């Protein structure tokens, strides 16, 4: 019954660098510091890396630039760019490459200095030609239109969207690595400046500097490293569109399919998962992904997140680092969903450490709800 790749690879090193503000460092510098930190965590060095998985906003061939900067000559690379989901996607390709012997030590890394460099979201993507004339604010207007449709179809309210932001901030108040740690209320979110209706400033992710990296090896050698391995039990992707106008239904994401296949590969069900790290670029994301991953019925996500259910002390632990809304969001956040999920299993999370986490879900989103990638991570007990 087990999928051929279930549990075949493990995360053996985690690292972050330059979270928040890192004046004087380029995106490449932050990427490299993250890589060094993750390798040191694993008890490995750059000379051991023979597989490189990297996407950056600054270059059209970022994986080559990264290899050159790091002074390595990887024999397997993947620079697939599906937006912020890329780094969750690399869990699938790295696992396949490791299992096939195409590489032995896989380094996944990312960095961005966009807060100190420009203060605005830096994106390598240009607006699609059939949308550009209408000047949607990219990417927030796409998410705003999804939120508007969800509100119209299911009665979701701005208050419920705000509850997502409040829960994320509650988690962040306990995390010294989080960029925004002052508690906020529903009223604060509702009163913040409107950006693209119905999303206001506090419905939107942060713009920070920061980098993250992780090191993967085959499971059979994972225990030789310094830290408790975190196994990749499932990883699956699906995409539906690139231009938001082409999204089949603005209230249903491809997470329905990526989640279904990731759970099947891992041989677990949604209720088995101890903690969820969902790519919350905007508050509507968390609601959509909770629905699409099977935590509540379609349309009930707004009511589901109310009353602190996903906040610290609630019945479902979601975005325990504070998420992209309150912890960090250096352009692409996907890698941080995996890093926090792995930390929770290892018991090394920088903020609130949950007890007894054996199964964690990391979900990456890319583009304008375009690419969805779900990964299920597990402790040794889940193998």
């Amino acid at each position, binding site marked *: 019954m087990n999928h051929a790749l279930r549990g075949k690879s493990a995360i053996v090193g985690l690292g972050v660098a330059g979270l928040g503000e890192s004046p004087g460092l380029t995106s490449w510098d932050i990427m490299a510091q993250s890589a060094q930190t993750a390798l040191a965590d694993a008890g490995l060095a750059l000379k051991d890396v023979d597989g490189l998985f990297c996407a950056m906003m600054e270059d059209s061939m970022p994986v080559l630039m990264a290899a050159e900067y790091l002074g390595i000559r990887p024999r397997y690379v993947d620079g697939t760019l599906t937006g912020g989901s890329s780094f969750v996607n690399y869990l699938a390709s790295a696992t396949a490459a490791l299992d096939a012997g195409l590489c032995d030590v896989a380094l996944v890394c990312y960095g961005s200095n966009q807060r100190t460099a420009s203060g605005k979201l830096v994106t390598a993507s240009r607006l699609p030609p059939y949308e550009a004339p*209408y000047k949607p604010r990219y990417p927030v*207007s796409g998410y705003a239109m999804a939120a*508007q*449709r969800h509100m*119209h179809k299911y009665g979701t309210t701005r208050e419920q969207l705000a509850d997502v932001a409040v829960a994320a901030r509650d988690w962040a108040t306990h995390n010294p690595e989080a960029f925004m740690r002052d508690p906020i209320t529903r009223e604060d979110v509702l009163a913040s400046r*409107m*950006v*693209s209706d119905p999303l206001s400033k506090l419905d939107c992710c942060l713009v920070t500097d920061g980098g993250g990296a992780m090191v993967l090896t085959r499971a059979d050698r994972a225990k030789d490293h310094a830290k408790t391995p975190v196994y990749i039990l499932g990883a699956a992707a699906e995409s539906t569109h690139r231009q938001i106008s082409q999204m089949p239904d603005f209230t249903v994401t491809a997470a329905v399919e990526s989640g279904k296949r990731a759970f099947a590969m891992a041989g677990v069900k949604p209720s088995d998962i101890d903690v969820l790290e969902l790519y919350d670029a905007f508050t509507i994301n968390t609601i959509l992904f909770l629905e699409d991953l099977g935590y509540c019925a379609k349309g009930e996500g707004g009511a589901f997140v109310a009353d602190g259910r996903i906040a610290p002390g609630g019945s479902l632990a979601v975005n325990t680092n504070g998420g992209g809304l309150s912890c960090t969001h250096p352009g692409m956040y996907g890698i941080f969903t995996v890093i926090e999920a792995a930390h929770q299993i290892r018991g090394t999370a920088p903020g609130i450490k949950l007890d007894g986490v054996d199964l964690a879900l990391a979900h990456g989103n890319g583009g304008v709800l375009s690419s969805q990638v779900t990964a299920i991570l597990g402790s040794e007990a889940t193998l």
Partner: protein
Amino acid sequence: MTPDKHFRDGLVAGEIRLQRCSSCHAHIFFPRVLCPACHGTDLDWVNASGQGEVYTFTTVRQRPEKGDDYNVSMIELAEGVRMMTRVDGDPCDVAIGMRVFAYVGEIDGKPAVLCRKTEE
């Protein structure tokens, strides 16, 4: 002529040109060389009726010094295709399900599909 060019030439002529698949009869937007529904390659061109409905929308807010707030809408045309456009008038008056008429207007001096509200 590329499908994209044929579409853009249509705008210059004041027409909203859509493709229609001869195999599955789906209308297609944006223009391309195959049908995304059935992957057939025998495509015709038709002019859109202009009849449409707001699928969803947003108001892009601007700091006053940058200009007025403006509407961005997703319109579903009667032919079944969806496209990004702008509904004329006060952005606060736009609502999902509102009937609109799509026409060729101008944005920044270039022809573009715009929409106006239809009287009920």
